[in-house]
């Protein structure tokens, strides 16, 4: 094998410039892949981190995934009679036996649970009124599953308890209503209950829809407002290990029957976008590597063409077809390995370059630069694809070389 390597090196060294060009082609493909993958992975990781940070990891809802079977349908199954136009039984909404379920969920190691009741209400202050979604929370429990305190710019979560009917709202909402901390607004629910509520906190998340249309009150207060005493319509869960969210959500749903969504399911649309993003990235770099592979195909073909005499003599000396095929395959792999190594260096330089870029604007989350993932696996994947495509590109000329008939060549040369 060392002999084959020596021969391959000798043959490539004769075509130094051409070899360099095809190596450079591979290197560029690898470098771009590394830089783009680092950018995308960096952004995606940051985004997922944000989602995991801000949102509960699992949400249990007061609904079922498929409509419950109605009594009339259960009574006549597969009979001669078919029932049409069944009017579904009016069912009181809310998670049943939420207290028991909460106790069970709290017992799961590494999990924290918080019951909430969400419902819409009309906030009225002077002549203005705005429709909002009010979430009723239990502060000590809610604190463990979501980080509302981080976003509070005025007031505190504890003030919800101290004031009667306290309410925390988003800053944009406060502006729209024209209220300040300590003002009292009138909240009217769809059930017709109206309450005087005192603004005890203002938050800013940077997410416009949240800042504009949400408010937080005590669970008990919201139960009164919504006229749903003791009802909980969501249970939020936060896990120590986020990767367990999806399997755990399935377990919970199987056990309780309530629709249970993991953060992955809730953000499926964005996670799908990531999949498409990655597909685009792989196709673009795949195209670059394809071009690079053609470069390698080209140089190996040229070497095979130029080396017909050498191939003939090697075969007459007793080299087998397999030896010859390996000889040229190795040349392709050498070009691929050199290209991958050079590409990794270039890619690292590109990442360093991108890290220097600063944007003029600042995102709500406070980023003025690219979010870059520095992961050795990106380099490994890029190198693997480069070497594999180089080897693949060399297969065809290598096989042609192996099949060369030495007699024909020797005759031609004589």
């Amino acid at each position, binding site marked *: 094998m060392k002999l084959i390597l020596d021969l391959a090196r000798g043959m490539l060294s*004769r075509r130094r410039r051409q070899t360099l060009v095809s190596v450079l082609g591979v290197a560029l493909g690898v470098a771009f892949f590394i830089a783009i993958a680092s950018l995308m992975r960096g952004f995606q990781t940051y985004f997922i981190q944000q989602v995991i940070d801000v949102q509960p990891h699992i949400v249990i809802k007061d609904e079922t995934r498929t409509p419950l079977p109605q009594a009339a349908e259960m009574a006549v199954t597969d009979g001669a009679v078919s029932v049409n136009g069944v009017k579904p039984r009016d069912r009181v909404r809310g998670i049943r036996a939420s207290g028991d379920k909460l106790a069970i969920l709290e017992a799961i190691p590494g999990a924290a649970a918080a019951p909430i009741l969400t419902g819409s209400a009309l906030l009225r202050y002077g002549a203005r009124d705005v429709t909002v979604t009010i979430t009723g929370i239990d502060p000590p429990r809610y604190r463990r599953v979501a980080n509302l305190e981080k976003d509070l710019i005025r007031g505190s979560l504890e003030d919800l308890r101290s004031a009667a009917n306290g309410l925390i709202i988003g800053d944009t909402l406060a502006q729209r209503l024209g209220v300040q901390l300590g003002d009292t607004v009138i909240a009217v629910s769809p059930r017709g209950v109206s309450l005087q509520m005192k603004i005890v906190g203002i938050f800013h998340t940077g997410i416009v829809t949240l800042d504009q249309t949400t408010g937080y009150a005590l669970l008990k207060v919201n139960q009164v407002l919504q006229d749903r005493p003791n009802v909980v319509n969501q249970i939020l869960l936060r896990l120590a290990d986020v990767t367990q969210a999806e399997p755990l959500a399935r377990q919970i749903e199987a056990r309780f029957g309530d629709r249970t969504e993991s953060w992955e399911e809730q953000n499926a649309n964005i996670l799908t976008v990531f999949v498409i993003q990655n597909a685009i990235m792989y196709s673009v770099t795949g195209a670059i590597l394809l071009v690079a592979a053609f470069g390698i195909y080209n140089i190996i073909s040229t070497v095979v063409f130029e080396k017909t*005499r050498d191939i003939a*003599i*090697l075969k*007459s*000396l*007793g*080299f*087998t077809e397999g030896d010859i095929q390996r000889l040229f395959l190795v040349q392709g792999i050498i070009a691929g390995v050199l290209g991958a190594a050079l590409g990794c260096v270039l890619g690292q330089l590109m990442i360093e370059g991108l890290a220097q870029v600063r944007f003029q604007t600042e995102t709500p989350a406070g980023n003025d630069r690219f979010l870059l993932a520095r992961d050795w696996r990106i380099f490994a994947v890029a190198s693997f694809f480069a070497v594999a495509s180089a080897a693949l590109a060399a297969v065809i000329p290598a096989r042609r070389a192996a099949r060369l008939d030495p007699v024909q060549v020797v005759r031609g*040369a004589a």
Partner: protein
Amino acid sequence: MTLLSAEGVTKRLAEGVTLVSDISLSIEGGEFVAITGPSGSGKSSLLYLLGLLDRPSEGRVLLEGRDTAALPAPELAALRLARLGFVFQFHFLLPEFSALDNVLIPIRRRGALKPAAAEARAMALLDALGLAEAAAKLPEQLSGGMRQRVAIARALANDPALLLADEPTGNLDTRNAAAVFDIFARLAREDGRAVVVVTHDAELARRTTRRIHLVDGRIVSDECG
């Protein structure tokens, strides 16, 4: 045991042209054989058949009593590597490698010797052919006669029983040609190898111990002495 024998060997091309027809002969160790004949008489074709580079359309070639007709390509290659040596009209040295490295290629491919022993053997071969100073030089730095002698050293690398040469002096001047034939004669006489040379030079052919004359792919005369 007969070193090499051909039994009714015929080679036809796909187009219906017959290059070699119904040739039977046997060659023993120590023989220095010249195959002569006019252009297109099938000399080289016969040599390639005897050297297992080509397969006959009919008949068979036996090397050291072993029928080679049924052997798969890799085994033929292994036989060429271990038992046969080739010299062509063109030297066919690999241009990127020194004379020594060129001689080392078949030795290393065979892998029977350790690196140090392989190099010593290659050096000894070059030395025996008066090429000691040329060992480190690239083929392009050598004269035509020297290149052909390096090619002979390479053909002898694995100590073959049979050396086959196809017009080895075609590109050489008279003096170098005579030197090459002297080397062949010595290899046959002293080492007991069989040497088969295709040549159209009647003068040089007379230095051999046996001359086979071909016309139109058939043996018309086979004389010794």
